[in-house]
C-alpha cells in the first residue's frame, strides 16, 4: 500500500472499531438519527478543518480559523439585526471580508517571508479583537430566513434528519476532494508542501498559490461562521474559541502530515467524525465529563503523530530499481 495511505487507513480502522464498540454498548448509536446529529453538530468544525487541510498540506498552519468564525457570527448578527440586511446579503459580505482577510495573511506570509504561525496568530488576535469591537455582547438573530433554514432538512431512511448545515459540510468535503486531487491548484498545494524551492523551479506560481490557500482557509472559516450562526442563531465574539486547534487535531488524526506534502481531505472527514463520535458517546453515557473528549482527542493525536513518524521514517524511499532489460 502507498505509504501516505497508511495513516488514513489506520484512522478509518480506528473509527470503525470505536463505532462498533460504542454501538455494542449503546445500540441506539447505530442509527441515521445519530448520524444526522453528527453531521449537524460538527458542520462548522468540518468546514473549517477542510481549509486547514489545504493549509497543512502546503506546509503551513492557520491559527486564525476560530477567530474568523467568531468574527463572522458577530458580523452577520450586526448586519442582519442592526443594519437590517437580508441574511443572504450578510453572508455574501461575510465571505467577501474573510476572503480579503485570508488573502492579506497569505500575501504577508509569502512576500514578507514570515512564518505562517506568526502571521495567522496576528490574524487571530485581529479577528477576535475586531469581533469584540463590533459587539462585546452576544446578539441573538431573529429572522424568518433563519427559522426556515432550521426547519428544513432531508429525511434519511431510519428517520434521521440531514440538516441544511450538515448538507453544506458534506458538499464542501466533496468539492474539496475534487479540488485537492483533480485540479492544478490541488497539485500546487501538494508541491509547496513537498519542497517549495523545487516547486518554484518547476514553475508553480508560489505567490498566487500561497495567497489562494490562505484565502480558501479563511473563506471556509467564514462559511463555518455562517453555519455556526445558523446553528446557534446568534453572533458572539467569543464563540468558536479554540476551534482552530480542534481543526488541526482532526486534520492530523485524518492522516495529514503536519510537515506538509502528504494528506487527504477525506481523512479529515473521518478525523472530524471521530471527534463527533467521542462527544456522542459521552452524551449517551451521561456520567462522563465532557472534558473526556479532550483527553481522548489528545491521546489519539499523540498516537497518530507517533504512527506517522514511524511510517514515514521506517519506510523512507525503498530503492526500487526497475530498469528495462
Amino acid at each position: 500500500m502507498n505509504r501516505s495511505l497508511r495513516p488514513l487507513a489506520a484512522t478509518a480502522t480506528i473509527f470503525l472499531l470505536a463505532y462498533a464498540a460504542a454501538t455494542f454498548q449503546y445500540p441506539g448509536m447505530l442509527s441515521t438519527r445519530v448520524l444526522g446529529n453528527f453531521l449537524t453538530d460538527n458542520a462548522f468544525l468540518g468546514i473549517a478543518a477542510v481549509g486547514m487541510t489545504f493549509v497543512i498540506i502546503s506546509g503551513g498552519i492557520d491559527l486564525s480559523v476560530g477567530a474568523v468564525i467568531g468574527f463572522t457570527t458577530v458580523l452577520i448578527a450586526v448586519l442582519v439585526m442592526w443594519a437590517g440586511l437580508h441574511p443572504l446579503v450578510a453572508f455574501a459580505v461575510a465571505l467577501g471580508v474573510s476572503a480579503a482577510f485570508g488573502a492579506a495573511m497569505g500575501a504577508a506570509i509569502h512576500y514578507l517571508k514570515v512564518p505562517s504561525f506568526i502571521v495567522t496568530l496576528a490574524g487571530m488576535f485581529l479577528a477576535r479583537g475586531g469581533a469584540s469591537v463590533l459587539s462585546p455582547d452576544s446578539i441573538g438573530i431573529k429572522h424568518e430566513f433563519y427559522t426556515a433554514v432550521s426547519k428544513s432538512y432531508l429525511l434519511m431512511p431510519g428517520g434521521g434528519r440531514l440538516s441544511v448545515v450538515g448538507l453544506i459540510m458534506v458538499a464542501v468535503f466533496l468539492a474539496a476532494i475534487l479540488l485537492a486531487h483533480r485540479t492544478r491548484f490541488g497539485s500546487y498545494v501538494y508541491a509547496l508542501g513537498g519542497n517549495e524551492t523545487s516547486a518554484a523551479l518547476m514553475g508553480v506560481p508560489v505567490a498566487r498559490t500561497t495567497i489562494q490557500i490562505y484565502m480558501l482557509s479563511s473563506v471556509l472559516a467564514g462559511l463555518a461562521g455562517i453555519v455556526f450562526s445558523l446553528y446557534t442563531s446568534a453572533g458572539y465574539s467569543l464563540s468558536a474559541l479554540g476551534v482552530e486547534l480542534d481543526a488541526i487535531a482532526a486534520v492530523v488524526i485524518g492522516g495529514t502530515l503536519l510537515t506538509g506534502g502528504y494528506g487527504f481531505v477525506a481523512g479529515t472527514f473521518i478525523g472530524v467524525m471521530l471527534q463527533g463520535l467521542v462527544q456522542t458517546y459521552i452524551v449517551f453515557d451521561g456520567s462522563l465529563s465532557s472534558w473526556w473528549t479532550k483527553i481522548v482527542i489528545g491521546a489519539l493525536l499523540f498516537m497518530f503523530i507517533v504512527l506517522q513518524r514511524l511510517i514515514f521514517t521506517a519506510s523512507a524511499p525503498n530503492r526500487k530499481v526497475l530498469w528495462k532489460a
Partner: protein
Amino acid sequence: MQTATTDAGAPVLQARGIGKVFGQHRALDGVDFEARAGEVHALLGENGAGKSTLIKILTGAYQPDEGEVLLNGAPVAFRDPLQAQAQGIGTVYQEVNLLPNRSVAENLFLGHQPTRFGLIRKSVIEARAREVLATYGLEIDVRAELGSYSVAIQQIVAIARAVELSGKVLVLDEPTASLDRNEVQRMFDVVERLKKRGLAIIFITHFLDQVFALSDRVTILRNGRKVGTERLQDVTATDVVRMMLGKDLAFEHHPTGINEGPTGPVRVEFNGLGKAGRVAPFSLKLHEGEVVGVAGLLGSGRTEMARLMFGVDLPDSGQVSVDGKPTTIRNPAQAVAAGFGFCPEDRKLDGIFGDLSVRENIIIALQAKLGWFRALNRDEQDEIAGQYAEALDIRAANHDMPVKLLSGGNQQKVILARWLAIDPSFLILDEPTRGIDVGAHAEIVRTINRLREDGLALLVISSELDEVVAYSNRIVVMRDRELVAELSGEDIAPAVIVKAIAENNTGAA
C-alpha cells in the same frame, strides 16, 4: 566507451563576452561559450572559476553585466529560469529538484497537466508519462511516489521533464555526483540518446574520465576567464588538468630541501581506512616532524579523507594506531583525546564561532578536552590566548573582540591556535589558505613549516600546487575518491602532481 566524434550541427546557445561583477569581485570576464545541436559540451573549472556563474547566466538565474546570450542566433534576456525553460533551456541539478512526495507522472507534467472542465485528466497524464519514460528505457510505475525510486531514476525523470518542457538545450549540473558506477552508465546512455535527438547538452562535472567518455568538446574556465575550448579528441587529460590548474610546467624544481623523507618515528598510522561511497580504503603513515600534502581536484575525496581520519564520518573499514598503539576513533571527541586537531575547509561554517571573542575561540577546544569540572579561569584563559596569539602573530586589537571582525588570515590562525592549545601530535589542515589574501598565504606557509620543526605530524590539503610543493615532505594524490599516488623526493613537483591527477583518466569508465 570511446570519445564521440560526430560533428555537431549549428550553434544553438551562444554567449559572447559575458562579464559579471559581484561587489568588488569580478566573477566572469569576457567569456565566450557556444553549445551546438547534437553535441555534449563539458564545462570545467575549479572552485571559483566561474562555472556556476556562467551557467546561472545561461539559464536565466543571473543577468549578465556585459555581453549577450543568443538562442538560435537571436539575442535573449531571460528574467528567470522559468522563462529560459519555456524558451528551450532546461536544467537538471545534482540535487534532484522535483517533488518526492508526488507521483512520477505528476512530476513530469506539473503545471502542464491536460485538463477537462478544470479537472486533471489523470489517465491521459499517466499514459503520456509511460510513453515519455519508455523513450529513456525506463519502465516504472508512474503512479508511485517519485521518492520511492533511486536517485538515478529521479535524475532521469528530471531530465525527461526538462527535455519535454524545453527541448533545445539541456544543462546537466553535476548529475552524476551522487550516482554509483552502474547508474552513471545508465545516465550516459540517456545522454547519448538525447544527443542523437539533436539536443545541445552542457555537462558540468568534476570527473575528468566522464568528460572524456561523454563529451565532444570542453570549455575550461579559470578565475572567471575562459582558458580555452578544445575538441576532446585533440587533447589529453594532462592538458586539461594543466589548463584547469593553470600551472606553467616550465618550473619543475622543488624549491626547498625538505624532501629528504621522514626522519622521526611514526606518529599516526591509518591502515585500510575507508567508507563505501565516500573514500576507497587507503593506508597512510605520518611521522613526527613531517608534512604530508594532499593534492587532487575538487570532489576527489580529499576532504572526505580528512573527515574519516578525524571521526566526523564513521569509516566502515580500517584501523588507526597512534604512536604504535591501536586506537579507536568513532567521533571527533575521541580524535581530540588521541591528540588530533582538524581545521576544516569552510572556516565560517565549521570552524570559527564568529560572535565569540578571540580568547574564547582559542580556548574552546582545550576547555572541551578538560571537561566541565576543570573550568579555566580568566587568567589562565588570557595567558593561553596571549601565548598563542603572540606565537602565531594573530593581529587583533584585543583578545575580547569578536573573531568575525578579524581578517581571513587571522581567523585561520585563531583556529590553528585553538588546536595548538590542546598540544596535538597530529594536525589536519583542510585548505588553510583558501579565502585569505595573498600576503597572508606566505605567513600560513611559514607557520606550517614551524610546526613541522616543532615535531608535529601534519596533513595539509590544498589546491595550491605551489604551496603544497613548498611545505610537503611527501604528497599523496587523490583521484575519484581514491588515493592513487604517493610522491616523495624529486617527484614533489607541480608537473608530476598534475600528471598523477590526470593519469589514466582517458582510459577509465
